[in-house]
């Protein structure tokens, strides 16, 4: 693409200021995601009795809007990003309330609402929107603007997490909590409160263990594999062992036939079996690259809002991928969480596109804000 260095059109400025490496890495992930859906979803589709390429088609159809959304949002300036986030958060909160009344119950939780024929998972959109809005509130308060930033951020956090726990969706609540915690931490939360917050999170996890039976059973099974059914985890482990260094080859996996969520939460195991250790390490490296490069960019940024908001988005992206991969590798108890871009899921894909677009917009090199 030949764009002159002194091109001052919107696209020209975008091209020379956006983080092109991250852009490429995210695009590669999205394409890999389509490949993995092609590989992992036909067996699931056959099990539930739809056309084998049902999920592939849906994913492909949503991939383009997601990439377009990412590019579109990355063109925005931070203020527009903030406005977009504010609107998205408002909408998500309304829909989250909606799930409680009109939501479709799937596998024991109501997380989806139907809008104009599309099934939407509002919690996916709430996460990046919350990260940006909270980032703004923290930065504003920190820089002495006359708004009760901390109080508003805390209230917002309580509202979102409360709605997520009502679904219940402990996984998303955990992610939102992590975003909020890290942002508060960056915004200069006194160390005493940091310690208190860590302790609070631990006790919240312990609380979740006692309040939600499914959380309890998962942790029990993680601590003592003989205590109950560890079927999915055993199968995932088996997949990595079968795969070895180079994998069995695309489409040659057998474990995907017996894991119920092979195209969603356990897509990493399918990758492990079919493409092998080296490919999986590349995937991990890709995620790590996006997160670390994001941190490096943010580190040079002088705009506190951009720093806190972008960090929130990076924490969301990084934590989600880490939790998914670690639970597939049985490093931590199983937690239903999608692997960004690789797992099947329309809402997740679209929300990720918007979230990454926000990240790209916030990490663009801007005049006067570089140290």
């Amino acid at each position, binding site marked *: 693409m030949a764009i002159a260095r002194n091109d001052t059109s919107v696209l020209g400025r975008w091209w020379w200021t956006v983080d092109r490496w991250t852009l490429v890495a995210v695009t590669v992930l999205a394409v890999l995601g389509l490949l993995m859906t092609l590989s992992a979803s036909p067996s699931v589709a056959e099990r539930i009795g739809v056309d084998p390429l049902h999920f592939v088609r849906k994913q492909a159809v949503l991939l383009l809007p997601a990439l377009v959304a990412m590019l579109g949002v990355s063109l925005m300036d931070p*203020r527009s990003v903030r406005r977009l986030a504010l609107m998205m958060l408002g909408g998500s909160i309304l829909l989250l309330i909606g799930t409680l009344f009109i939501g479709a119950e799937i596998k024991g939780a109501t997380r989806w609402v139907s809008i104009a024929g599309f099934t939407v998972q509002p919690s996916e959109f709430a996460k990046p929107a919350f990260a940006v809005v909270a980032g703004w509130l923290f930065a504003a308060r920190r820089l002495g603007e006359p708004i009760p930033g901390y109080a508003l951020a805390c209230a917002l956090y309580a509202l979102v997490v409360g709605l997520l726990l009502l679904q219940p969706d402990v996984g998303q609540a955990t992610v939102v909590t992590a975003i909020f915690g890290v942002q508060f931490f960056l915004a200069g939360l006194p160390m005493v409160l940091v310690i208190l917050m860590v302790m609070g999170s631990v006790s919240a996890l312990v609380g979740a263990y006692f309040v939600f039976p499914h959380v309890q059973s998962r942790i029990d099974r993680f601590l003592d594999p003989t205590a109950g059914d560890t079927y999915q985890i055993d199968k995932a482990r088996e997949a990595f062992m079968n795969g070895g260094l180079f994998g069995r080859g695309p489409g040659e996996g057998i474990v995907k036939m017996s894991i119920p969520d092979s195209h969603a939460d356990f897509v990493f195991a399918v990758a492990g079996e079919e493409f092998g250790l080296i490919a999986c390490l590349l995937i991990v490296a890709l995620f790590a690259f996006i997160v670390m490069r994001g941190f490096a960019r943010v580190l040079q940024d002088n705009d506190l809002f951009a720093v806190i908001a972008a960090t929130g988005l990076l924490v969301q992206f990084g934590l989600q991928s880490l939790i998914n*991969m670690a639970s597939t590798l049985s490093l931590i108890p199983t937690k239903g969480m999608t692997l960004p871009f690789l797992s099947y899921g329309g809402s997740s894909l679209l929300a990720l596109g918007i979230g990454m677009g926000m990240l790209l917009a916030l990490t663009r090199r801007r005049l006067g804000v570089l140290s």
Partner: protein
Amino acid sequence: MIGPFRRTRRPKPPELYSPRSKPGGDRRPVLNCAPTRTDGTFRRAIETGRSRLLITGAVMSFAFVAVGLRLVDLAAFASPTATSAPMHAETAYRMHTDRATITDRNGVIVATSLTTTSLAARPDRMLDPVDAARKLAQVFPELDPAELTAKLTSGSPFVYIHRKVTPKMEQAVMELGIPGLEFERDETRVYPHGPLMAHVLGFTDVDGRGLAGIEQGMESVLKGSDDPLRLSIDVRFQHAAHQELKKAIDTYSAIGGAALVTDVRTGEILAMVSMPDFDPNHPADSPAVNRFNRATFGTYELGSTFKIFNTAMALDSGVTTLADGYDASEPIRISRFTINDYHAKNRFLTVPEIFIYSSNIGSAKMALDVGPPAQKAFMERLGMLQPIALEIPETGRPQYPDVWAPIYTMTISYGHGLSVTPLHLAEGVGAMLNGGMLMPATLLARDNVPTGRRVVSEQVSYDMRRLMRLNAVYGSGKAAQVNGLMVGGKTGTAEKPGGSKGYNRRSLISSFVAAFPMTDPRYVVYVVLDEPQGTKETYGYATGGWVAAPAAGAIVERIAGIAGIAPIEENAPEIQHAFAIDLPEETKKLASLRQ
């Protein structure tokens, strides 16, 4: 720039963030704005944010490294088989059933319990019993819809609909979605070999209670343990005996028969067949008469095979020797009976000749020499007057005269007047050959062999081996010969009670008892046919030598290979010498003596 300015002076983000607000390439004013934000608050905030960002970044990169390492650990170093496979094997092995498995002596499963499902209904909980009956009849074509409807509308709160439902049928019933149906887990007894060991194993009722054979006799043991019960039976021996007996019964149109193989050293029963038989998996499908056990429950006058005991008794008591003899020239007349010889020689016969010609006259005279009380005591010691204490309930009680008069002494000498089971005979013959010790028969594998009870001296036992060998070479047992296996044997042909003269000449119990190798006896093979009919090949004869001896020989030949008994050179000088018994020239020329 601190103090009052902090709260009032608000940075102007639009100018900072949006280059668009500045037309053209003139960026100077924007750059100049930057220093306005370098006040203390901002600097402190951004510094804190950066240092804490570094911490966050470090934690995250550590987590990514951990995931990478775990990936390498799982994919490159763990072996796929080591972790999960043994766990499954172990759980399968520990499976518990309500009734223990039964195996043969080599661990082959001959009876085991499988988990099955029974379908039951609680009609009072059904929405529409008539509709339910119609739907169920579609899944189980063997059920009559009308009958099923009657069952479900009978007012009974609980009815069984179908026992032993297969998983496929179970799924089909589930898919009907009828409320008020219940599946009950229970067990089904399965006999993988079908009728092969019918009379040994017996069978169980639908509730898993033993109703015959080992299943009944060992009920408490089978109920109380998860360990398999090991029988003395060897299915390979059992199969040989089963097949050869069946062949003989079919060939000679017998109404039934029995075959036994026992180990003379331990008393273990290695094969036990009674015919006609039944399939213990479906005992009710065969006539009840098929469950009658001819090998251990039926008692018969077994005829000339008893001359083995009679001869041994006479030799052991010292009234005669192998060199002595008796006059068999005249039939014995006693009260209204006449004792004749089937193959009358009408002359003086030596003891070996009496044995191989199967002379009733000679045997009766030998027995009279011993005397009735001593004969009864001998029979008692040999276990011929008591039921055998076997592990199955089907054990026949011998019938013998209340008053042991001389006439009975004479008839019992050649196997009439005393009815015993075929197992009694096999057990007794074993004692005659193993050195003189009676080993109690058993159907359970014997790890510790009991001492047994002495019934005859070792010398007499040795003489009996020689006599039985002689009979198989020169006498009535030629058809049971298997080259090199040193088979010895004795025929028996008895008329069954009935008919005009007390006995029926056409209804025979024809038998042959073989044992091998006579150099060091291991196995007794006994074949009994009930009412065999002669064929053209046997010239119409249905006697033991014609109909039972070939079957016994066939069994011997088959089991010798399985047991690993190698043939020897029967004509070797040392063997000829060890088994030599002097006989008159005429006997050796007698070719077709097959009684």
